[in-house]
């Protein structure tokens, strides 16, 4: 079980958090102008990376803030955390 360093609260047990999947999928600004294919791409298609993934977590049982985590999904090692809107670190 991970220890996640919430950018607002500090290190907390994983059980306080909820995962929110792949990060930086931007909701289209003009959905009605997308084709069904393009909309499906946004809605369902995922990289589902094995390796370093940028993902969203929510401190659901804490400050309720959403933030981003960089984690290697092959061994679950967390590399970095950063707030929403901050520039993602490079990995």
């Amino acid at each position, binding site marked *: 079980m991970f220890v996640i360093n919430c950018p607002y609260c500090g290190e907390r047990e994983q059980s306080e958090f*909820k995962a929110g999947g792949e990060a930086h999928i931007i909701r*289209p600004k003009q959905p009605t102008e997308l084709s069904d294919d393009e909309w499906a791409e946004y809605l369902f298609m995922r990289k589902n990376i094995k390796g370093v993934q940028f993902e969203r977590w929510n401190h659901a049982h804490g400050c*309720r803030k*959403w933030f981003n985590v960089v984690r290697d999904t092959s061994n679950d090692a967390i590399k970095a955390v950063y707030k*929403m809107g901050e520039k993602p670190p490079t990995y």
Partner: protein
Amino acid sequence: MTKNLRVKTSKFIDETYKISFKFNRTTYYGYKGDTLASALLANDVHLVGRSFKYHRPRGIMTAGSEEPNAIVQLHNNSARTEPNVRATEIEIYEGLEASSQNCWPSVNFDIGGINNFLSPVLPAGFYYKTFMWPASFWEKYEYFIRKSAGLGKSPTEPDPDIYEHKYIHCDVLVVGAGIAGILAAKTAAKNGFKTLLLDEKSYLGGSTIYQNIENHKINNQISNSWLEKEINEIKKLKNLEIKVRTSVAAFHGYNFLLARENLTDHLPLDQRKNKTRHRLLKIRAKKVIMATGSLERPLIFDNNDRPGILLSSAIEKYANLFGVACGEKGVLFTNNDSGYETAISLFQKGINIEAIIDNRENIDSKLIKEIEKNNIKVFKGYTVVNTSGYKRINNVSIMQLSKDGQKVVGPKLSIACDYLGISGGWTPAVHLFTQSGGKLKFRDEDQVFIPNIYSSDQISIGSCNGDFTLDEILSSIPNKLKEFLDLKKSDYDDLEVQSSFNKSKRNIWLLPSDKVIGKTKPFVDYQNDATAKDIKLALREGFRSIEHVKRYTTTGMGTDQGKLGNMHALGIISETAGSKMGELGTTTFRPPYTPLTFGTIVGRNVGEYFDIFRKTPIHEWHVQNKAEFENVGQWKRAWYYPKNGESMHNAVQRESKAARDSAGILDASTLGKIDIQGTDASEFLNRVYTNAWSKLAIGRCRYGLMLNEDGMVYDDGVTTRLDENHYIMTTTTGGAATVLGKLEDYLQTEWPELDVYLTSVTDHYATISVCGPNSKKIVSQVIPDLDFSDKSFPHMSFKNAKIDKIKCRVMRISFTGEQSYEINVQANYGKSVWEKCMEIGKEFNITPYGTETMHLLRAEKGFIIVGQDTDATMTPIDLQMDWIVSKKKYDFIGKRSLYRSDTIKEDRKQLVGLLTENPDEVLEEGAQIVADIKKSPIEMLGHVTSSYYSPNLKKSIALGVVRGGKNMIGHKLIIPMENKNINVTVADPVFLDKENKRINA
């Protein structure tokens, strides 16, 4: 007549404290400090159980948690009985009762023993090759297979014991309190680290503490007395917490470990009352020091499983720690110097040793010299080729090994004995290390896997790291600790260690025999009866990977998880397949290290603590008024209020009628309530609901439908504009938390530019809904200062008010189709306001109603319940709620999905009303709807989602979803039940008061 093999007092055994216990219904005696195994051995009992597959007699083999054979059923009591308890671990207590497992009628005479004679046709995986004919017979074969498999018996009554959890955060966790662990714990604690030291045994000091031989000295003292002083010192350290009888079960990522602290299993039964049995420690350690020691390896030869064959180190421990001899005529068989340490210990205690068989040739060491000095015969370069004695070993056959160790040569000698100690060297206990994600490397010199790459902040020290001798351990530890803990010096920098241990070992995984392997039974996994020839068979059949061999032969899959034999299995595979052992890898060591009781894992989360239950502020009133309750999410909601033994049906009919005829009252406090504030609150609602919100006037309420981004209905509820920038949103009861989560998600991640704040206020308010034609008369007396005139307070509007100086919010909204007022008041006033409504409502026969009546009333009116009439495949259009989907709004959550090629189809399932041909026939919710029952396969058009007998309409009504139902009003359809077909007509889903006269009345 049993013998007494207690040889000499040991300071670990309290001979003044005699304990009686029963094994297989015979009473025996032992002393405080004994394990069941040591006490049985003291009574010369070796035969303890029968093996899994061949039902071969088996005895005690080890003195620890690696025991494969001596596993027993503990307690007779149907609630406390416990299967598969290792006799080597359980400390005896007054009243202990244990019995042998997997044998019938008794361990001495076991019918299942016939399997041993059938063994030629029962090789590894035999069951994959047979029991296939006739095809229908597998169930019958399986019945017998299941009966003969299994080991002990499950309890049949609930467990009366208590378990609990404890969270521990520490700087340094030391696992294992052998000499390495003691040194590590002391070093860490003395240097200011908050330290926790755990050991699965009842005492500290590991094997060093009971080894009392001149050959091992530290600072000129015999090692055990030196260590004893260290132990006494660490007990005084205030930075150090020590827990014995505590076994680390699992080592997860991020230095999260689980350990089981055993608190009462060693106590007499009468002292266990009201005490916690096990405590599960959930440990987060900044640093972990693994000092888990090593396990002695057995040797693999024909019939190496007989009762009376033990690990050499176990024999030494029984003698030194428990003062017990394992028999009267002993033989030791070793491939390294450990066997001689045992011999010296036995000799010191006056326990007979007939001979030592050492597979090494030309070997010499101080230990051997000392043995030979005492006229014990040592056979160098020999191996055991067979043993005899069905229920107890009585003889070993030995032969000389060829130079290359591949075969045996010369004459066969025979030595009579009643016990045999075997030592195949040592295997580091790296199980927990690998669980944590650590990677091993193989050390060719002595054929061991040792830790190589660590996945977290941890080290392995002592014999679990492959340092087996005292001088190796003590010379490596100080520097390792200093580096790991970042220290300048340690107390142990200048230890003087004398240790005379010849490190040579002649490792032969499968010892040669004078017989062809097919005729031998060299056991690798004792419990599961997997032999070396099974492993070779698996390889021959193409099972190459270690995991395949393990699964095909079941090696390592017993309750001991192959702690003894896994290495030999690997060795035999690599020898047979000609591959290098280091490249073969190991099988995965899966948690737990030793089996962990379910009760321990669950702790207090049983019975009423399984899950919290949420109660409304008015809950007690419902209880007092004999409500039946329904679970909705974690909430307990009043379901209906039976009067004078009324049936549910009658109660609901009465409640429903009263609500329409006069007045009803409902506790709606469980509905989710989200307080929404901020200058962009209206824009936010525009984006999350399908309809438009900007123009909603202050003081007005509006029903909203929320979709998932996939266009499917997700939640619904009424939202009220309290002020320019202030709304209160209601959600479904079960959806409250997920809706808030979803809204926060969009707000924080998609629309951070919006000035909106969300707060859950579900628990802060009690919500009391009064409905019916007389509702206004009642609420206007409850809140006399408020103007309830329709003009001032129309349907779908809200007012702030006060009841006896207490602020409340009153909404005129309706889920029943009746005129209806919802009073929201601070939760702690909820019950008194409810009672006030009841009191005032008396003259109008105000009737409390529960969720069932609420469902019925709303169904009469054709209102949906999200989750009952929808199932995450329904769009608002499917629900015939096109009116709520704004055409003007540019976007809202889920909008785009409504226009996909399949979601715009006309023939989707759509919500309709259903009327039965026979008005008294009530449909079953969930029943399927078809047009043509003759068609094959039958085409299902939809299903019944809600169905009731309406006392107000005096007929059965139902809602359902039907493919293309929107255009089928008036069509006849069929509900095919198991024993009949019910004719229905598709109808408008609004059965009552389509014109909304009652709401606005």
